[in-house]
């Protein structure tokens, strides 16, 4: 067991301890849960400290036998891609737990589910065995299902069932593809990620398997037209759950694209890249356009999130290092921004009992600090230079422009639209004539500042000084781009293994 494994399982242990606490000791439940998530964060910082930024290989994990009959191992590790997602998870989780401090209903299962979810998400990012990955991937579904369904808004049942069925349908297709790849590998059967890389597959088989994986990840991201579960889920989820859902869980989809979809089926990925990019750009424009029209601010964030994830997918599939790096850092950025936005709107909703943009007006007068923080996060989300959103979007657009010059244009238009809906909503809520309801809006409290301040600090920090992040991401991004250029077609280019950054790119014969 390594520090990484400890990070993964500390929350689960916390969940079990929470489960054992006798009834009625809610304060103790909260403390235990928060300490477990803080301990996980501390452990992940140790992982960050040990991380060697000079290599693209997987590090700091462990590999244990599990089901030898089927070649299943417990195998974990991080590279520059998963490292930051792990840190994002462990960073957002204590915030989400602390934001749930006032939950009075069914405290015990609530905190237990959140902690179990943290383990599942961390495991998803660290698993290097496809079986293990699938296990964590699906296991994350169950706590989220309960979290939305038991502690959500009035339409929670509809939202949670839709969420569960959508994601499960996608995952099951992925399972079929995993099994297919498993039985296609020559020699000793294994679910090991690095062993499965370079499994020779015909273009047709690759395309089908790619689409099956892609369905699972695209639903999670979500990409248009598979997005319809997400606005409902966001709108109905309570604030902390929405933070986790949008901040971390969606990244599992984008992460899966980089980690599995492209490297396992590179020829299909190259062949289908234009198709995926069209979907991504459609998502950027559609998400932004629909966001403009939203009356409920939570739904506005949901649609803006669709647009932002369109950017991330675009960056991943342009096949250039800048795009890939931009996509990866943008995942972290997006997590921080969404977390902050959901927390802030949650605070406003708590004060006025409404999330409707039209119910606010002139709130900046009575709550200047809150308004200021809101503005910073909104500006970050629309990509203002000096804040984190700019770094990611700039890199993505740079990559898109260098690879497919004209494709960057509609994406840029998406940024303009983002400015429209974000600033327009801000203007309507915080400026203009003061409405009666808004008078009650008191400024941010110390407890709430503790929640938002770290997020805003990192939003500014990454915006000003992204280099420490990019230094660790870049080797892994290079590797990912090289993997996309590899070919694993059985004939033609021969069976090319794409092992690590050392393995040179092999010209593809697929297109």
């Amino acid at each position, binding site marked *: 067991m390594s520090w990484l494994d400890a990070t993964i399982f500390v929350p689960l242990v916390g969940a079990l301890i929470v489960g054992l606490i006798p009834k009625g000791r809610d304060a103790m439940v909260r403390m235990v849960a928060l300490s477990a998530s803080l301990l996980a964060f501390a452990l992940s910082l140790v992982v960050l400290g040990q991380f060697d930024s000079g290599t693209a290989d997987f590090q700091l994990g462990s590999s244990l036998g*599990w*089901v*030898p*009959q*089927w070649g299943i191992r417990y195998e974990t590790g991080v590279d520059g891609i998963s490292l930051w997602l792990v840190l994002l998870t462990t960073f957002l989780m204590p915030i989400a737990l602390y934001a749930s401090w006032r939950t009075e209903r069914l405290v015990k299962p609530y905190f237990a589910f959140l902690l179990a979810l943290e383990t599942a998400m961390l495991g998803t990012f660290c698993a290097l065995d496809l*079986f293990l990955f*699938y*296990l964590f*991937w*699906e*296991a994350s*579904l*169950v706590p989220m*299902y*309960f979290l939305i*369904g*038991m502690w959500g808004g009035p339409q*929670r*049942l509809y939202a*949670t*069932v839709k969420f*569960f*069925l959508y994601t*499960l*349908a996608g995952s*099951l*297709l992925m*399972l*079929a593809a995993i*099994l*297919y790849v*498993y*039985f296609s590998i020559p020699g000793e059967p294994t679910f090991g990620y690095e062993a499965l890389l370079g499994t020779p597959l015909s273009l047709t088989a690759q395309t089908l398997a790619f689409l099956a994986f892609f369905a699972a990840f695209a639903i999670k991201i979500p990409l248009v037209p598979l997005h319809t579960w997400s606005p409902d889920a966001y709108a109905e989820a309570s604030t902390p759950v929405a933070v986790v859902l949008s901040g971390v869980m969606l990244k599992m989809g984008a992460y899966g694209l980089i980690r599995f979809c492209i490297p396992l089926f590179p020829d299909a990925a190259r062949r289908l890249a234009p198709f995926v990019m069209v979907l991504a750009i459609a998502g950027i424009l559609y998400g932004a356009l629909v966001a403009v029209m939203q009356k409920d601010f939570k739904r506005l964030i949901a649609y803006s999130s669709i647009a932002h994830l369109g950017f991330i997918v675009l960056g991943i599939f342009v096949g250039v290092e800048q795009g890939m790096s931009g996509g990866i850092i943008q995942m972290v950025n997006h997590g921080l921004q969404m977390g902050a936005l959901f927390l802030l709107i949650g605070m406003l909703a708590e004060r006025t009992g409404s999330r409707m943009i039209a119910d606010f007006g002139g709130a900046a007068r009575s709550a200047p600090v809150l308004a200021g923080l809101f503005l910073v996060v909104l500006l970050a989300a629309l990509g203002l230079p000096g804040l984190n959103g700019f770094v990611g979007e700039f890199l993505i657009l740079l990559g898109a422009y260098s690879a497919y010059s004209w494709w960057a244009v509609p994406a840029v238009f998406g940024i303009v639209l983002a400015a429209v809906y974000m600033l327009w909503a801000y203007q309507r809520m915080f400026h203009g004539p003061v409405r009666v309801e808004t008078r009650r809006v008191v400024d941010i409290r110390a407890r709430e500042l503790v929640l938002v301040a770290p997020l805003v600090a990192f939003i500014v920090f990454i915006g000003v000084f992204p280099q420490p992040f990019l230094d660790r991401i870049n080797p892994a991004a290079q590797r990912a781009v090289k993997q996309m250029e590899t070919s694993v077609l059985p004939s033609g280019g021969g069976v090319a293994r794409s092992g690590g950054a050392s393995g040179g790119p092999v010209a593809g014969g697929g297109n």
Partner: protein
Amino acid sequence: MPEFQAPTILLSGIAPEIALAGTALLVMIVSGFVSGHRSSWYLPVLSTVGFALAAALAINSLDGVNELQLSGSVAADRFAVFVKITLAVFGLLTVWLARDYLTRDRLEEPEFYALVLFSVAGMMLMAGAADLIVMFLALETFSISLYVLVGFRRGSLLGQEGAMKYFLLGAFSSAFFLLGIALMYGAVGGTNLYGSAAENQDGIVSFLNGAPVDSYGLVIIIATGLLIIGLGFKVAAVPFHMWTPDAYQGAPSPVTGLMAAGTKLAAFAALIRLLDVTLFTLRLDWRPIIVALAVVTMIVGSVLAIVQEDVKRILAYSSIAHAGFVLTGVLAANDRGVSGTLFYLATYGLTVLGAFGVVAVLGGRDERRVRLADYRGLFYEHPGMAAALSLFLLSLAGVPVTVGFVGKLVVFGAAIEAGYTWVVVVGLLASAVAAFFYIRILVVMYMQEPVRPGPATPFGVLSGGVVALTALATIGLGLYWGPLIQAAENATLYFVTG
């Protein structure tokens, strides 16, 4: 004067069955001497001893050789042993569940235990049957016991209806099975599945191996189809599933659990021996039948479950869908298929027994509270039972970390290995549909407020223990399934050599 040679009669192949049948007779005899219902504690004790003895005898022959016994009519192989051990566990759990159930409903009678013992004995014999006649005897032994058990709640109309339907359609299916045997006999000249042993030439395998390929003839194919129909009834494959919802609903819940777990396992064991061993050379002929059955069963079972309002009926349709999933392992007709099917059935049995255990516990007197609406807000009344049932449902849905996921993984893996990826894709889509009704129950239990604080349903230590045990198995085997899949892989079938 020639010295008298005593024939060696090996009984290890049917020792567990003998133990169970003996215990059943003992139960009947002892009950004649004990009067009154008050002192019925000996019934579950005797049955427990019987099942433990059967399991012990089966385990004892685990390391024995694979061979045919009793003039080649019973196969003593590791496959049969695996099935018998599993069936003994199922029987044990059923009896423990039934104890509390019967006491509550004032149904405690020795016949119940005797019938459970007889039916499990029949199921065990099914697993080792190496002759179509023995297979038929075994089939009838457990079927007739189950007909009575299904109608054991004499006061219940649903029970009457279920037993009647099960009996009529069961008799119908037996006729198909018998006709299949007759046709097979007509074509081959024997009813033995193997028949290559020196003493017994006329078996199906020896016929298929001896005859030229083009002389297999239509009759054998038709006979195979009829035998599949007969067994298809028992495993509740579509379109032979009509009796399932009614019988499952009408039967006392512990019996329903035994039917879902045990009958399926026994009938599938016989089907596997028939198809994968005896008719293996004809797999190009029977595979399309099994593929069609699997696809239709998975889809129909999953879709029809959606509209049900009674938890027992939901689980009945789910068991139909599961028969379809198991069939994907059968159609693979490879090593992974056999071990995967065994693994699937063993773990499905544990899960479904647990699920019906929860239903039995929560149903209350006369099983009045089995409708979906009765489970509203269950989590707030019985958090433990709700958690256990959710675990079982998630396992049935095939969500990872539970054993149901592993089961699907192994049977679907076998089918993909055999080249039937499209069937697997259909199966996974059916699972996605099926997930809807499983989580529908979860929604009702967790996300709806309890209508009124229903009557407190106390439950005994035994049934609570069964639920806890099966819940532990569901999650434990889901995480650490290596040993069980190893055991299933070791459970090799007896093949004709030479």
